[in-house]
């Protein structure tokens, strides 16, 4: 233990710290400024620069001041949904029309001022209508098209069959993100099926849907298309001439080298004479936030960005396909052949429905696609599974429950509580105890108040959300309906895929395996590195702590890359050792193992450091006595070190258990729940319900409350176990 310092020096220490604290408080308080027009977007690179150019020109010309903000895509819609209802949103924001239905339902949008509704292509404009009201000015149409490497492929291309066979002039015929349901859409339409039927019912049904699955599975089986191709890999394989053609969108134009001989064309049919592969087109639009009032300057800025003047710049510099027919004659755009091709592709594409139900189709169809590509399900069974899942997600909302019994119960509870407190107060001389506690309260009040306000408040509100269904703007009180539905697996099999109970089992297994490995590896390394005469001890310690210091969102992605079936390092190692490459994310066992490997890597340094600390704290005499008594190494560990170490490690083990139980990042970034949500744990399931499955916030919150209750019960049991072990 550190000896007490001499008072004069330590007083200095206290004052220094206090001064530092005050200085920092002053530093962080920066005044906010009121600006004229604000606009938010999630653009980057060329598109962001083009928008910058347009906005700067506007500022110079009009003298208005514009504040622009680029928000990370991952946080964008959450930010909009939080800011706009409170009046803190931007005046304008740019977003794909896909969420239009949700935004209008939640009251985030104002209609477009009538004066601005002129000169936009009818199809793009139609995508932004809700009823007869126009929400948003179409800025750009985004759809997939075929990029053909003309240094490899000569001759005309009337169907995908006209592309060279694999291995003739390039390794692959075609690359595209073959596991994404967005890139699968053209094949669905080409086979005559659909995502959502005209009457809003699930469209991905019947033999046509199965045919689409069969088509894309065949492309991979014949070696024409590489498996598990992510966005970055797609453009890279194409750039390196390893694939003769690529299916991608206008965003890929900026990535191509300037001298490349690439032709862009609308997607041809799969086979000669077949139906064309029509992709979905999304329309990016400029939206007017609700609660801001359309100021003259806002309208002027919207005009400057969306109309011809801004559109030319966005098309030329930002590679945007601008839906204004008045522009196609402009000489500066007429020579941009690839842009013209995208314009044609967008015209032939199918407008993506912006309804809430459309957003519920992605996950089921994606699951069917992946199950087929893995060979787990026949196309027919995969189609049936997708429909089942869609029905599960879009099941009718629970009927509203009466709040009266709840208020009654709440009243009774508080009354009982009050009576109990009163009786206890009298019996235990409560007033005296309270009086004696007063000095302590001086020390804790500030922390307690701030915790109650900023941690307790949101938690309680969050937990209360679990009693509601529907959207944030129009919640319906449903009582325990969410819980009942979760605990009964929504009427499906109790241990079926995606049911609460199965996910719970996976979570328990996940926690147990991880914590066991964390502790074993951490303790082993702690013991090795605490050997008194070990050389390079400090070097090892610093290097071994690195996994902890690097942000986990990037190291998890590195691990995912290492587990890639075709290009990952782990399979390269397996092949090098004479083994067979493994499709890691195709099976529960291997995908789970990949997650565990990543999480063990992230977590063992913490336990190593804790062990090192605990060992330094062990009484030396006992250890020496044990070695003098002639105990073997194992005996010394088993009977002397371990019993002393265990209680010291227990608090960290409990904390580690809680962290692992809720370790969202690794599961979400590495396996992403693959295969088929089998490796999802409870938190990632809660997240999916709250954010990706049509924002069923109440349902997600009910999951969160269940996780909370489980952890409270679990840690109390662990604690009791610890107390027993100690005594």
């Amino acid at each position, binding site marked *: 233990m550190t000896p*007490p*310092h001499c*008072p004069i020096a*330590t007083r200095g*220490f*206290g004052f220094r710290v206090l001064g530092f*604290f005050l200085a920092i*408080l002053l*530093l*962080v308080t920066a005044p*906010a400024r009121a600006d004229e027009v604000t606009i*938010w977007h999630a653009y*980057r690179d060329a598109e962001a620069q083009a928008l910058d150019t347009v906005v700067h020109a506007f500022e110079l010309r009009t003298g208005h001041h514009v504040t622009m903000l680029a*928000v*990370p895509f991952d946080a964008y819609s959450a*930010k909009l949904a*939080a800011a706009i209802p409170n009046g*803190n949103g931007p005046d304008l924001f740019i977003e794909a029309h896909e969420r239009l239905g949700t935004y209008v339902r939640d009251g985030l949008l104002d209609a477009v001022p009538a004066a601005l509704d002129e000169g936009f292509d009818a199809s793009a404009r139609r995508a932004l209508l809700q009823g007869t009201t126009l929400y948003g000015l179409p800025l750009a149409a985004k759809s997939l098209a075929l990029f053909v490497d003309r240094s490899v492929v000569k001759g005309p291309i009337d169907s995908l069959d006209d592309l060279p066979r694999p291995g003739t002039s390039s390794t692959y015929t075609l690359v595209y993100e073959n596991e994404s349901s967005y890139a699968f859409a053209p094949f669905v339409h080409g086979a005559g099926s659909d995502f959502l039927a005209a009457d809003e019912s699930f469209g991905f049904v019947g033999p046509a849907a199965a045919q689409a699955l069969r088509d894309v599975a065949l492309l991979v089986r014949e070696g024409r298309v590489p498996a598990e191709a992510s966005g*970055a890999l797609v453009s890279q394989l194409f750039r*390196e001439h390893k694939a003769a053609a690529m299916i991608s969108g206008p*965003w890929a134009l900026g990535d191509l080298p300037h001298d490349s001989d690439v032709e862009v064309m609308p997607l041809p049919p799969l086979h000669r004479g077949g139906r064309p592969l029509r992709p979905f087109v999304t329309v990016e639009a400029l939206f007017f936030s609700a609660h801001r009032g359309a100021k003259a300057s806002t309208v002027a800025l919207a005009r400057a960005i969306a109309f011809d003047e801004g559109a030319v710049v966005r098309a030329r510099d930002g590679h945007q396909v601008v839906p204004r027919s008045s522009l196609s004659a402009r000489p500066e755009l007429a020579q941009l052949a690839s842009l013209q091709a995208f314009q044609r592709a967008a015209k032939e594409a199918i407008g993506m429905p912006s309804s809430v139900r459309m957003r519920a189709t992605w996950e089921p169809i994606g699951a069917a696609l992946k199950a087929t590509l893995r060979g787990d399900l026949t196309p027919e069974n995969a189609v049936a599974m997708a429909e089942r899942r869609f029905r599960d997600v879009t099941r009718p909302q629970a009927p509203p429950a009466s709040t009266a019994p709840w208020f009654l119960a709440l009243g009774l509870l508080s009354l009982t509580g009050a009576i109990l407190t009163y009786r206890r107060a009298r019996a235990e001389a*409560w007033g005296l105890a*309270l009086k004696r*506690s007063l000095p*302590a309260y001086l*020390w*804790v009040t500030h922390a*307690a108040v*701030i*915790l109650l306000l*900023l*941690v*307790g408040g949101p938690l309680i509100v*969050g937990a209360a959300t679990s009693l509601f269904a529907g959207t944030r703007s129009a919640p319906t009180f449903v009582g325990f309906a969410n819980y009942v539905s979760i605990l009964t697996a929504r009427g499906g099999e109790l241990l079926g895929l995606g049911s609460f109970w199965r996910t719970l089992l996976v979570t328990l297994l996940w926690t147990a395996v991880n914590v066991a490995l964390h502790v074993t590896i951490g303790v082993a390394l702690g013991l090795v590195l605490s050997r008194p005469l*070990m*050389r390079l001890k400090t070097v090892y310690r*610093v290097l071994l*702590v690195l996994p902890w*210091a690097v942000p986990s*969102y990037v*190291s998890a992605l*590195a691990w995912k890359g290492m587990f890639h079936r075709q*290009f*990952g390092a782990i399979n390269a190692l397996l092949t090098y050792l004479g083994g067979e490459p493994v499709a890691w994310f195709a099976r529960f066992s291997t995908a789970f193992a990949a997650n565990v490997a990543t999480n063990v*890597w992230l977590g063992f*340094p913490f336990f190593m450091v804790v062990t090192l*600390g*605990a060992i330094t*704290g062990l009484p030396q005499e006992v250890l020496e006595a044990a070695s003098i008594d002639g105990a073997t190494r194992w005996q010394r560990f088993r009977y002397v070190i371990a019993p*002393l170490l265990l209680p*010291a*490690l227990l*608090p960290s083990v409990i904390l580690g258990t809680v962290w692992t139980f*809720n370790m969202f990042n690794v599961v979400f970034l590495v396996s992403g729940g693959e295969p088929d949500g089998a490796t999802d744990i409870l938190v990632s399931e809660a997240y999916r319900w*709250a954010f990706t499955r049509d924002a069923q916030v109440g349902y*997600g*919150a009910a*999951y*969160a409350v269940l*996780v909370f209750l489980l952890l409270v019960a679990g840690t109390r049991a662990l604690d009791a176990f610890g107390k027993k072990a100690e005594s």
Partner: protein
Amino acid sequence: MKALESFAAHAVAIVATMFALYPLLWVLGLAISPAGMASEPALWPLPDSPSLANAKAVVSGNPHFWTQLANSLIVSGATATVAIFLALPAAYALARFRFFGAQPGLRAMLWTQMFPGVASAVPLYVILDKLGLLDSRSGLVLVYATTAIPFALLQLKGAFEGIPIELEEAAWVDGASRVRTFLTIVIPAARPAIAVTFLFAFMSAWNEFILAATLLSRESAFTLPVVLQRVVGEHAAHWGVFAAGALIVSVPVVALFYVAQRSLVSGLTAGSVKG
């Protein structure tokens, strides 16, 4: 025998170090290859012709880089400082006083760590809005600090319990007040634990981006991880730039770890070893 043992120990340490470093080498490889990720299966992660183009894109491709770096440092430093200042007296009271509500309070504190944050972001936003702390670094610091307090409290309480009370009693006899002994005896004795708590709070604030992106609405107020996340777009991402940015972002944390190395070992378990 001794030589064999030492050999085995080094073997274990070397294998573990390789396990720890290999994935980081992939991040590094991605960061210094101009072309992006490997499209050939490979065991060795570093490219033949390294380039600093990605790192340059992170630093000079962003006119606000230095402001945002400063923001990150200020916000994380302030978070750690505020969290410690709020937690220190409370932890002391929990360690030294017996008072009404201490046990339930402590338990509730642990419980807050168990509730997934899925549903609490919007209420938090509303509260900060009402307090007028939206879109300010102070608001962000307050939010981060409160999330760091539970862990800080548990850590510091443990550390204070490990300090013999006799040290304080001697000073009280000499006429020192409770506050004075707290400042001059207890806090200095708990320095390693304070350092660890600081490091933890600093790190969690340093890497966070979802809340920062939601609560802040000015480019010049953003922290670095928010800007870093922007290279991951809806349709495609620049993984090379992302990796380079992540490595640049982790430099200060690694430096802190290095500096705090000694405290880390003694501070993390200060309270739990009562032997």
